[in-house]
């Protein structure tokens, strides 16, 4: 039970990270290697607001999300859109976006280092909560709950609303989306920006229980990519479930086998999914 609860909470944190990337990669087709840095920026903002003004990270969220939205939108329009235009094939776009976003991630690390090179760490809701016979940290619980809320809201929005459906349509087939009158450019930019906002929001929450520094973004990018691929590109539900699975497996391995093997285990299930279900858990295959 211990393992299940801790695993689900960790999975909740991962889900936050992965949902943002899923929008960016699934819809806008940009494999954004700077995703982790956006997350760290969110964390930095939460830290800074907390330490300087005693502002609760839960309030910072509200400011960070729109800022990250605007920033990511600009990033897409100015830096990535030209690559989308230039690319003749999906593969070409992938190579270009890997290189460009890697450059962006470097740039952002540089910016953050100049803002704060030290660790950002503070105590927020670091109190134990007793839940179903186990103790968990309140900050993790809050993060997981907000992740669930965001995930649920996104899921409903994507599946029930017309604009949400347009986003899914672009994810499924940009060409067909154009045919039904969807402005693919605008929807892609929007999805990319929304992904950035969700990621930064995740950063705010994660900073309440993980000690971050300017250079730790790449770890999150990697986990997020693994989750997105595992869950199926462009599928929010898949991302959430894959994130929960990853959280459970990591916690189980860390508790039962050895903490030293958590990442190895994460990789093992990633590989297993790739080998037996290359389209991801919820991916629909090559439609």
């Amino acid at each position: 039970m211990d393992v299940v609860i801790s695993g689900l909470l960790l999975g909740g944190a991962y889900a936050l990270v992965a949902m943002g990337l899923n929008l960016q990669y699934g819809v806008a087709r940009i494999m954004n290697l700077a995703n982790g840095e956006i997350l760290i920026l969110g964390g930095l903002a939460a830290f800074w607001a907390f330490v300087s003004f005693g502002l609760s990270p839960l309030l910072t969220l509200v400011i960070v999300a729109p800022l990250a939205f605007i920033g990511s939108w600009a990033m897409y329009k100015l830096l990535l859109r030209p690559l989308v235009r230039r690319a003749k094939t999906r593969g070409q776009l992938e190579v270009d976006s890997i290189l460009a976003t890697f450059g962006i991630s470097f740039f952002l690390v540089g910016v953050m280092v100049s803002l704060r090179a030290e660790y950002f760490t503070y105590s927020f809701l670091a109190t134990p909560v007793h839940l179903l016979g186990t103790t968990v940290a309140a900050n993790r619980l809050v993060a997981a709950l907000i992740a669930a809320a965001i995930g649920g809201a996104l899921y409903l929005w994507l599946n029930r609303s017309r604009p949400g459906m347009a986003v899914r349509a672009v994810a499924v087939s940009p060409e067909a989306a154009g045919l039904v009158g969807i402005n693919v450019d605008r929807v892609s930019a929007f999805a990319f920006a929304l992904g950035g906002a969700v990621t930064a929001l995740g950063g705010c929450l994660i900073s309440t229980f993980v000690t971050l520094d300017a250079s730790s973004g790449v770890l999150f990018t990697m986990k997020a990519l693994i989750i997105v691929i595992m869950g199926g590109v462009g599928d929010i539900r898949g991302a959430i479930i894959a994130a929960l699975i990853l959280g459970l497996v990591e916690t189980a391995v860390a508790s039962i086998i050895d903490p030293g093997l958590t990442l190895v285990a994460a990789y093992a299930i990633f590989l297993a999914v790739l080998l037996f279900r290359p389209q991801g858990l919820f991916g629909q295959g090559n439609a």
Partner: protein
Amino acid sequence: MLEVQDISVSYGLHEALHGVSITVDRGEIVVILGANGAGKSSLLRAIAGMSDGKVRGAASLNAQALIGQKPDKVVETGLALVPEGRGIFGTLSVGENLTLGAYPARARAAEKDNLAKVLELFPKLKDRRAQIVRTMSGGEQQMVAIGRAIMSSPDILLLDEPSLGLSPILCQELFRNLAKIRDTGMGVLLVEQNARQSLAIADRGYLIENGHITGAGSARDLANDPAVQKAYLGATSY
């Protein structure tokens, strides 16, 4: 009315279409006949704003210019394309595909009416609303594709080889349905290799060869033209 004037399309050095002009009016079916690689698909994609090549010339619908517009703008002017391979959202459900068809602003008001129209045309789709499209047969997918196009309230419907991959019986049903769509007042521009069946329902037709229009006339005249018979009705497969 769709007016296409002197359109050329080139891909790099290769010119696929040379100065093609056609018109399609509401309430008529116009068929374009031609061999593989003759430039038929290039023409449709150029009109719909989806060409990968360089497009010159002009096209207008209801006096609004089409060339140079992105696909979503073209749809708003009242033109819907069902491309070769259908271009449907395979992983979405029938219902979602149809709802997405009504995405253009021009289609929102009439969404209910259009849906009724589509379901009347394709009663099969009625109880398949929740089915994921890619699990359906080719003929059913074609219905979804056409139904989705109708959902956007088009004045002119463009279809690129809709009979491709359909069994003869489904083909017949398809062409009957196209005739019904025409009768609702929509204009239909059809690119086909199935000359026999398409000429049977069409009002007018064009022949296209190596990127040039090589003949035009009423469907009946074309069907009776010996050259057409040799090229499209006898010598080739159908």
